[in-house]
C-alpha cells in the first residue's frame, strides 16, 4: 500500500514541474486539477476503510478536481487570456529553482522523525516541495489566475501533510478547511472578474497605483 502511495506522490511532484514549466493557463489549471484528483485518492491508499475516509476522498475530488478548476476555467474564458506573458522570473530559472526547492525539501524532511506507521514514505518531502512550488508560482507570475494556481498548489501541499493526520483529526476541521478553500477561491474568482473588467486584463503588474511615493 505504502509504495503505491509513494508513486502517487511522485506523480504529484512531477505535476508541480509541469505547472512551473508551462505558459498556457488552461493547461496549468488542468494539471492542478489532475493533481487534486491524484491526491484525493491518497487517503484511501494509506488508511484502512472507514466512512470518514470515503467522505474525505469524495470531498477532495469534488472540490479540487471539479469545482475549483471549473471556477478558474470560467474566469479564464471570461477574461479571454490564454497565456502567462513575461513572468517576473523566466520559465527555465523557475524550473531550476523548483528543482532546488524539491531537493531541499527532501534534505529537510530527513531531519524530522516520523511515526512508526509512516516510516519511509514521501509525504513530508512531497508536501514541503509542493508548498514551495506553489509559493514560487505565486511570487513569480504576473497574471492573477497564475497566482491563484500557485495558491492552489500551496493548499495541495498542505493537504498532503494533512493526510498523515486524517485518521486522528476530527472531520470538522477538514471540512472547514475545504470550505474555506472553496470560499477563498470563490472570492478570488469574483475579484479576478472585477480586475479583468477594470483593467481589461488579468495582469496584476498593472496593480501599481498603491505604493509609497
Amino acid at each position: 500500500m505504502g509504495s503505491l502511495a509513494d508513486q502517487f506522490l511522485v506523480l504529484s511532484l512531477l505535476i508541480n514541474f509541469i505547472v512551473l514549466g508551462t505558459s498556457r493557463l488552461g493547461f496549468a489549471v488542468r494539471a492542478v486539477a489532475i493533481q487534486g484528483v491524484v491526491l484525493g485518492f491518497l487517503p484511501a491508499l494509506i488508511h484502512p476503510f472507514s466512512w470518514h475516509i470515503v467522505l474525505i476522498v469524495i470531498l477532495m475530488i469534488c472540490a479540487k478536481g471539479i469545482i475549483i478548476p471549473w471556477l478558474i476555467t470560467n474566469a479564464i474564458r471570461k477574461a479571454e487570456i490564454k497565456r502567462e506573458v513575461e513572468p517576473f522570473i523566466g520559465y527555465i530559472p523557475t524550473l531550476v529553482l523548483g528543482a532546488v526547492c524539491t531537493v531541499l525539501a527532501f534534505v529537510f524532511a530527513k531531519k524530522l522523525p516520523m511515526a512508526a506507521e509512516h516510516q519511509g514514505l514521501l509525504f513530508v518531502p512531497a508536501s514541503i516541495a509542493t508548498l514551495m512550488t506553489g509559493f514560487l508560482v505565486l511570487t513569480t507570475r504576473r497574471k492573477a489566475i497564475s497566482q491563484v494556481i500557485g495558491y492552489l498548489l500551496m493548499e495541495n501541499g498542505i493537504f498532503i501533510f494533512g493526510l498523515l493526520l486524517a485518521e486522528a483529526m476530527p472531520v470538522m476541521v477538514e471540512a472547514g478547511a475545504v470550505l474555506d478553500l472553496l470560499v477563498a477561491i470563490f472570492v478570488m474568482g469574483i475579484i479576478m472578474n472585477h480586475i479583468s473588467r477594470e483593467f481589461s486584463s488579468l495582469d496584476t503588474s498593472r496593480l501599481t497605483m498603491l505604493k509609497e511615493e
Partner: protein
Amino acid sequence: MQLSLMLFMPAVGAIIAWFTPDNRHRPYILPLFAAIHLAILGWVLIDTPPASPGGWFLLDPIGKLVILSFSILFAACAWYAVNYLRYRKERSNRILCSALLLCLSAMCLVSISQNLGVLWVALESTSVLMAPLIYFNRNARSLEATWKYLLICSVGIAVALLGIFFLAYSTIVAHQDATLLLSSLIDDAPRLNPGWRHTAFIFLLVGFGSKMGLAPMHTWKPDAYGEAPGLVGALLAGGLVNCAFLSLMRVYQIAAATQEAASFQSALIAMGLISMAFAAVFMARQSDFKRMLAYSSVEHVGILTLALGLGKGALFGALFHMVNNCLTKGVLFLSSGNIHRAFGSKNTAVVRGAIRWVPWSGALFLTGFLAITGSPPFAPFVSEFTIVSNAFTMGNYWAGSLFLVFLAVIFIGMALTVLPVVLGEPPAGETGTSEPYRDSFVSVMPLMVLMAIMLVLGIWVPSPLQTLLTEAAGLLGGGR
C-alpha cells in the same frame, strides 16, 4: 448554551440583513444586533459558562479580553455605520451589513475556541469575510488593495495551517493520540520532538504574523487600510489584529512550556522591533492620512509582539495595550473617515484645517493621535509605560531603549501629518463634494464614548478589568 447564543446571534442578524430589501433601513440592523451582542456578552462575562464537552470551546480570561475589546469597538462602528451609510445611499449596503455581522460571529469563534483547528477555521473566515468589506468602494484602487490583502493573508494563513498540522503530527510521533486541544498541547509540549516543534513555531509565527501585519509581511496593510471605508479600517485594525494576536498568544502559551521558550521570545522581540522600525521609517512624510494610520497599526502590532516576547511583567502591558490599541484605533479610523468625507480626499495636500470644517472630528482625530502615541493621561500611555519599565527592570536595555527611540520618531513622524491636517490653514473655497458633510451627533458620539473609555482607563482601571488582565497575564505565564 450562552456561548452558542453569543456565536449565532450575529449570524442571525446577518441573515436578516441579507433579506431586508430596503437599503435605507437595513443599516439599523447593525446597531440593534451590536446591542444584543453586548447584552449577551455582559451576561457571559458575569456568569461564565464552563468548557463545552470535549473542551473545544471555553471563554478563558485572554479570550474575554479580546472579545470585550472588539465587541465595544464593533458596537461603536455599528452605531457609526448608520450615519455613514446614509451618506452612501447610491451603493447597496446588503453585502456590507451581512459581512460585518458574520465577521463578528467569526471573531467570537476565534475568541472562544480552545482547539487550534477550529481557531484556524475561524481566523480564515474572518479574513475572507473582510475582503468584500475592503472592496466596498468598488473602484480600481480598492480592487488592488483587496487583491493584495486576500493573497498575502491567504498565504499567511495557509502557512499557519501547516504549522498547526506539524504540531498535531508531533503529538502522533510522541506516541500519543493526535490532538489540537490547547490544554493538552501545553501539557505535552515539553515531550514533543524538538525538530517538529521548532518548525511548527516558525511556521505559526510567520503565518499569524502576516495576518497581524508584522513587518516585513505588512505590505497589504497600508493599501487595505487606506482604501477600505473608515469603519472597516477600524475593525481591521482593532478586531482582526486582536484575533490574530490572540492566535499568536495561543502559540506562545504552548511555546512557553517548552525548552525553546527563550528563542521563541527573542524571535518575537526581534519581529516587534523590526515592525516598529518599518513604521518609524514609513510614517514620516505620509501624504495619505489613512495610510499613515496603517503604519501606526504596524507599529502597534510591533509593540504587542515585543511585549509578548519580553514576557513576565510586560505581559500585563501587552494585554492592556491590546485593549487600548483596539479602542484608540477605533477613534482614529472613524474620525479620519469623517474628515475624509468632509474634504472628499485623504491627501494631506488637500485636507488641511479639519478643525474648522468638522470641529468635533478634527479634535477627536487630534486627541486620538495624542492617545495612540502614548501621551498621558490616556490609557495607551499606561500600557506602553508598563512595557518599557518592565523591559528595563528585566535588564533588556537594548529592547527598552530602541522601543523609546522608535516611539519618539513615530511621534514626530505622525505629528508632521496629523497637525497640518487638523490645525493647518484650510483650503480656500468649497471642496469638491456636492453635499457638504458636517459633524452630527451620531457620527461623533460613538467616537466620544471610545475616547472617554481610553481617558478613564488611563486614570483608573476598574477592579474587574484589573483582575481579568492579571488572570490573563497569569495564563501566559507572567505575574505582576
